[in-house]
């Protein structure tokens, strides 16, 4: 009995593996897609503001204004461009040649000495809200730094509106790549787990092979398991590739342990495979399977997982929905394992959530799958 089950299952596994090896599309989704996505997000997309063009308008140049403008030139965040008057600078901002304007009026030095208050006007282009906020923050820090050094040079205290002392934890370099790349692993594994599984089962329906498979003594458990195991291996392979690229190509630090990372990935992959199998129980052609898998698994993993967009900033109804997205828990674990270390208070609740979701989807897929056509 056990030998016949092993023989059947072995046959199914061998068949699935041969198909993976012969069909370039599965290999492409598992290995080429991760490389592609990692390159886009690792090199192309950056949420940092660097070398922002900034208009500097000085109405009455003197030593103080020169020194302050020099502070911008030294900053790696800004490229100062000088304008004669504000109107020209505004025109440049409208054409998006500059992202902001720093305007030093004629009374700059006098006010600075007399009142010790910061009399500069700053105009930031708010069209790109995210960028504007970052530029605003950088501007303030340049201004505060300059004021401090100005006061130190003169030995006179200058009253700052707010004294800010910043220290960034967990990602001291404040490189967006360091948290995008780990988050991307969740997206990549969703692709291999859910999309690939849903598609290959649909392909069997389309080609009529599923019908032949169903009229063999193989049980539905064996058939489903034979889809899970190879794509689990493939998904973990994609994960390993992504981690290797993250560590050695993009120089993302890994503060936690590799074992914790693998454990969490395995749990998440089970959830993704469960979703894929669930889609495959009703989608019987590859087009529908692909569409459904992308809409219900890939897009949420992309947008609602906190990988790019912070969940805390989402409106309450959307925030509630994110609790159903498996990738949310995985992204939380990934970012903590990479950037902070083994934080058990983050790992354990999120891992439990992943376990529950995986159990739910796999169980539901099993319940709905029948060795029948209707």
């Amino acid at each position: 009995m056990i030998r016949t089950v092993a023989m059947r299952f072995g046959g199914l596994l061998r068949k699935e593996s041969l198909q993976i090896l012969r069909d370039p599309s599965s290999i492409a989704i598992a290995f080429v897609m991760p490389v592609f996505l990692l390159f886009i997000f690792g090199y192309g997309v950056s949420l940092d503001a660097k070398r922002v063009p900034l208009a500097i308008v000085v109405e009455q140049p003197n030593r103080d204004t020169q020194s302050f403008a020099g502070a911008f030139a030294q900053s790696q965040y800004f490229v100062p461009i000088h304008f004669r008057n504000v109107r020209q600078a505004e025109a440049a901002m409208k054409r998006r040649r500059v992202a902001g304007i720093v305007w030093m009026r004629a009374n700059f030095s006098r006010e600075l000495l007399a009142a010790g208050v910061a009399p500069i006007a700053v105009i930031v282009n708010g069209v790109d809200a995210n960028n504007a906020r970052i530029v605003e923050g950088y501007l303030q820090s340049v201004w505060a730094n300059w004021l401090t050094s100005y006061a130190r040079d003169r030995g006179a205290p200058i009253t700052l509106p707010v004294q800010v002392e910043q220290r960034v934890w967990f990602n001291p370099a404040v490189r967006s790549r360091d948290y995008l790349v780990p988050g991307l692993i969740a997206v990549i594994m969703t692709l291999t787990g859910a999309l690939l599984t849903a598609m290959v089962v649909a392909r069997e329906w389309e080609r009529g092979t599923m019908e032949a498979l169903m009229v063999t003594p193989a049980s539905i458990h064996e058939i489903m398991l034979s889809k899970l195991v190879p794509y689990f291996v493939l998904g973990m392979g994609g994960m390993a590739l992504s981690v290797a690229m993250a560590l050695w190509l993009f120089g993302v630090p890994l503060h936690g342990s590799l074992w914790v990372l693998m454990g969490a990935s395995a749990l998440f992959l089970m959830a993704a495979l469960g979703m894929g199998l669930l889609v495959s129980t009703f989608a019987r052609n590859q087009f529908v399977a692909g569409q459904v898998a992308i809409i219900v698994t890939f897009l949420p993993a992309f947008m609602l997982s906190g990988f790019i967009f912070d969940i805390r900033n989402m409106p309450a109804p959307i925030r509630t929905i994110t609790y159903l997205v498996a990738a949310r828990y995985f992204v939380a674990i990934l970012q903590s394992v990479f950037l902070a270390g083994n934080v058990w208070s983050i790992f354990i609740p999120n891992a439990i959530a992943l376990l529950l979701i995986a159990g739910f989807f796999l169980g539901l897929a099993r319940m709905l799958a029948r060795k029948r056509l209707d």
Partner: protein
Amino acid sequence: MSDSTEITTTAEPAIVLDSVSKSFVTGGRIVRALDNISARIRSGVVTGLIGPDAAGKTTLMRLIAGLLVPDAGRIVALGIDVAREPLRVQGALGYMPQRFGLYEDLTVQENLDLYADLHAVALVERPARYAELLKMTGLGPFTRRLAGRLSGGMKQKLGLACTLVGSPRLLLLDEPTVGVDPVSRRELWAIVYNLVENRGTSVLLSTAYLDEAERCADVLLMHEGRTLGQGAPGTFTRRVAGRSFRVFAPDVGKRALQKRLATAPGVTDAIIQGANVRIVTDKAAPPDPRELLADMPHAEITAVAPRFEDSFVSLLKAPGAAIAAAVAAAVPREAPARKAPGDGEMIVVRNLSRRFGDFYAVRDVSFSVRRGEVFGLLGANGAGKSTTFRMLCGLLPASEGTLRVAGEDLRHAAARARANIGYMAQKFSLYAELSVLRNLRFFAAAYGLRAARQRERIEWALSEFELKPFANARSADLPLGYKQRLALAAALMHEPEIIFLDEPTSGVDPLGRRDFWRRINALAESGVTVMVTTHFMEEAEYCDRLVIMAQGRILAEGTSEEMKARVRSAEIPDPSMEDAFVALIQNNLANGAQAA
């Protein structure tokens, strides 16, 4: 059941169907796929499940295989209740679905290995089993070839080999012979007979080819979810014994003769067969020529052997069969002859070839078609028929050779040539979501018909093809025969001079097929040139002339009479079109072997 008197119940039946019903919901409609079917399938013989598309053959197969559960009734296969213990049944039977269930990216050997694993065939038994199956199917030299690279006939045999790996006691084959060339069909039948004789396997085989009924020991005839009868094929043909005749009348054209005989009193069926018309009468007595053909002194009436199809048609047309009345009434009105049928050559093809990479789909093909002729392209799937068609319609450029259609060279004036062409694609290229009326409007507009002219043609199509009652029905919901009519109407909207029909009657029941050919004959009579592809050997008889294609080449050209005459011998005194085809392919193979 009076038909089953011949059946001697020696053993327990392989399958017992007890009042089985099954419905599906499609597009908000409930379709009764099977309506209260009861039958016993004998063990140790081949039983044919015969009927046109939508008869419920596949549904019945799937029910027996445990892939579907009946709404009502009970199925016992090999003594096991299928609904209760599907896995046990599936362990004991072999099932080949319509597309053979092969993994095209695995090799022949890998496919066999997979099915051997699935049926848990012991490793020690495998070498002998494989050797036997490979010998039986002739696939021995191809074990390392990918299944996707096999020809249609070889795929079919591999599919059969895979279902046989587990040595099933019961074999379910769902339309294994559709679209496969006649030689492969005969080889498949030989394998099936061999299994039945040497292993005592019970076989249930479904087919839409009525002539295959005669190869079965027992036949279950189905139509629209019901059984029309069960019994040995002889019991069916015996019922129409003495009612089949061949009529030859040199005074009138075969089409005019067929039209007249089809509506003559006492005639159940009249079809064109080469230069003759074959009729089935409603009484077992030779018809009186003076009555039937009063004004044709040279007409000859000869009695011929009855065929299975005769009995099917007479069963369908029997009193009480509702479908018959509707079809019989549908006699197309006389279409005024637009241009006198002359000898103007409407289609001229010279040394036509089409390559895909280094593969020749069509190779060095030449023929010509005269105005008003019905010209056939006969061949199996993959013979190059559809590729030839696409080139003739200007849908696919030719790699080599010249093509003239309606006087236009397709290389330079494809668009102008297309204005004179009507094209009815395989599977009826209709917009399934649109109503009948909207489909007609779309095609009329696509052919540039506007305003009054468009209204006039749509009105013509609705009345000519009796589509008025369905004008607002979604075309997806139409019965197959009506879909076929609508597709033909759409192709005729702009009154083309040439009409191309690509496998127009695939899957349509015999009455639908007759109705369709009646319309085609009327078109040809009015001067329209008709070009048709088919893999039904019998439809070749309806054509004035035809070419037989295999592997992209033309094997023979001529009338069906000429082709049959070539293979007439002492062994086959009255050869069928299929005999002619098989002989041609075998000659071709022999020549090829000689050349090599």
